[in-house]
């Protein structure tokens, strides 16, 4: 039976779940956008802070979850991301949609899915977390229901996510068939340590890769990404780009490291091919993209490919690198979408690169932030992106996976092209025929503040990341 003693370990998840229910109840009583907004903010903050009250060490919770340093780290990361996204959503929703209270329920629920996923130690909990995340995302993506693009992307995401979930489920069932276990440790125990797996198990793994690869938007399961990013509202896109992918990646690490799935050479090769393809295709696709959200989508495909390099190193350092990079990626993507939100107006989002023409001369501070974000995503020093990439390269070089390392380098070279294109446009001459008198959504508070904060974080982690590195090294050693 479940004991209440274990519940303090999943305090953040409980807080978020409770908050979702409470927001719903409040709506039943009285609709208030502002209230829902503030309440959600507090919920995320509380979830992040509550991690401090979880004792150190690694504990199992009802065999579905394991709470350890790694999970806690990701919990904080996701809660913070949720916090930031909530902050950026308020004015955006005010401008673009009538009924907004449900948004916060869905946001909390999808965050809950992510939060439970990162501590999942069991296929059942993983699957349920994934579906909590997905189902809320279907609604979130299609949230702006007056816009055909929103509905379109919602349907696309639903169909594709359901297909990939089916693959995932089928895969899990095959694994279950082979091992008789659904918990990761049980699966690992039932396998030979040499990597000689039976066909059914392997086939199961392959189908699990399809499901996970889809959520992480790795090539060839990436096709949905640009359409969904472009069609969904910018805060939701930010959520999809960061929280959804990050949580799945965290589980990927757990799954493959604890079951030893990568011991199998073919699995490793498959992931290598996926990684190489993601890095190259993602960056190639972005080369001439004019739509900034699509561009970010492609870039995120590439970034997840980079993360796979660390994942495939299968070392302590690889885990640290992946974690560090993910943090950097979160910050970068949030700030990027934050800028898009800032620049959007009632009529629509600032989707096209041309919307940013001459931004530096109009809003130098915003342009500086966006530039830094682009440079960070491109991996230029003084920004955290550089150290992230350095860490990845270190991880890759340590074990000598040269193909991946070289592809990483080449593709980030390709990537540089489109990041710089955006930067160059911002610094180009002013847009003369700009007639849009519509004021932008962005406000100094909260958008300006949040963006500045993210900007400072990028610089801080880019110049003096020792504190973050310290934490990451600790949690990586916990998970081992």
């Amino acid at each position: 039976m479940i004991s209440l003693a274990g519940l303090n370990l999943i305090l953040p998840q409980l807080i978020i779940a409770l908050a979702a229910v409470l927001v719903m109840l409040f709506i039943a009583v009285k609709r208030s956008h502002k209230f829902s907004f503030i309440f959600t903010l507090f919920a995320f903050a509380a979830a992040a802070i509550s991690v401090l009250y979880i004792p150190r060490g690694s504990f199992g919770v009802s065999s579905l979850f394991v709470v350890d340093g790694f999970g806690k780290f990701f919990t904080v990361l996701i809660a913070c991301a949720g916090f930031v996204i909530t902050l950026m959503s308020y004015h955006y929703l005010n401008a673009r949609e009538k009924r907004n209270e449900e948004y916060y329920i869905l946001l909390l629920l999808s965050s809950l899915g992510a939060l439970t996923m990162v501590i999942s130690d069991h296929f059942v909990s993983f699957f349920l977390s994934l579906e909590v995340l997905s189902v809320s995302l279907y609604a979130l993506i299609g949230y702006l229901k007056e816009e055909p693009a929103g509905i379109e992307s919602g349907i696309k995401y639903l169909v594709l996510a359901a297909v990939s979930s089916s693959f995932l489920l089928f895969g899990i069932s095959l694994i279950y068939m082979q091992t008789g276990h659904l918990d990761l440790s049980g699966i690992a125990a039932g396998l030979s340590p040499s990597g000689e797996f039976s066909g059914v198990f392997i086939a199961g793994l392959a189908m699990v890769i399809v499901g996970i690869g889809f959520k992480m938007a790795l090539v060839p399961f990436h096709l949905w990404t640009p359409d969904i990013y472009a069609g969904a509202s910018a805060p939701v896109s930010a959520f999809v780009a960061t929280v959804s992918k990050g949580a799945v990646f965290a589980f990927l690490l757990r799954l493959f490291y604890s079951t030893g799935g990568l011991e199998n050479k073919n699995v490793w090769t498959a992931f290598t091919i996926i990684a190489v393809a993601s890095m190259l295709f993602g960056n190639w696709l972005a080369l001439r993209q004019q739509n900034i959200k699509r561009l970010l989508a492609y870039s995120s495909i590439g970034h997840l490919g980079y993360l796979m390099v660390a994942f495939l190193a299968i070392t302590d350092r690889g885990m640290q690198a992946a974690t560090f990079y993910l943090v950097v990626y979160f910050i970068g993507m949030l700030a990027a979408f934050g800028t898009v939100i800032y620049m959007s107006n009632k009529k629509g989002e600032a989707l096209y690169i041309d919307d940013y023409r001459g931004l530096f001369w109009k809003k130098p501070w915003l342009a500086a932030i966006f530039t830094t974000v682009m440079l960070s995503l491109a991996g230029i020093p003084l920004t955290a992106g550089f150290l992230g990439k350095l860490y990845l390269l270190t991880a890759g070089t340590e074990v000598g996976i040269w193909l991946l390392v070289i592809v990483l380098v080449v593709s980030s070279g390709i990537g540089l092209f489109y990041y710089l294109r955006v930067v160059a446009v911002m610094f180009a001459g002013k847009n003369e025929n700009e007639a849009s008198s519509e004021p932008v959504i962005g406000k100094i508070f909260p958008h300006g503040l949040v963006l500045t904060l993210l900007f400072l974080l990028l610089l801080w982690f880019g110049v003096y990341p020792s504190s973050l590195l310290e934490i990451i090294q600790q949690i990586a050693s916990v998970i081992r």
Partner: protein
Amino acid sequence: MQIIFYIAALVAIVSTAMVITRKNAVHALLYLIVSLLAVSVIFFVMGTPFVAALEVIVYAGAIMILIIFAIMMLNLGQASEKREKEWLKPRTWIGPGILAAILLAELIYTLNSFSPPAHEQAIIDAKDVGMSLFSTYALGVELAAMMLMAGIVGAYHIGHEKQKEYHRYLQKEEEL
């Protein structure tokens, strides 16, 4: 008893094939229910009576009804059947067919190498399932609840028809 399994399996496969080839949505849905019932039979044969019942009640009963409602709301009549005819050209089946064939071949290949020890199967009834659900998977059930909540809230928001709001000039016009 194995023969029942095979018969039911055949029914399931045929009716499923019918589902995906029908032009009329309601017909397809009926075939789908047949397919689900066949699967339910298989569940029963395999000694899992609880899920066999759930299959009929929830799947065939609830979810399918939902879809029927949707079909009714969308009012897809004879015209749509004609359209379906245009949409379903024979060659559209080729690609997916080949793809599925490859996947099937690969799965058969793996299943071939998989020879589980033959053993008697015990009936795992509702009690066992319930025990499991509310002990080991209790938190999972909570999560599933959250998922349903998400589904409901989402469906509510998206399905909510906005009140038609006319521009105030237009309203004036109507008044005139």
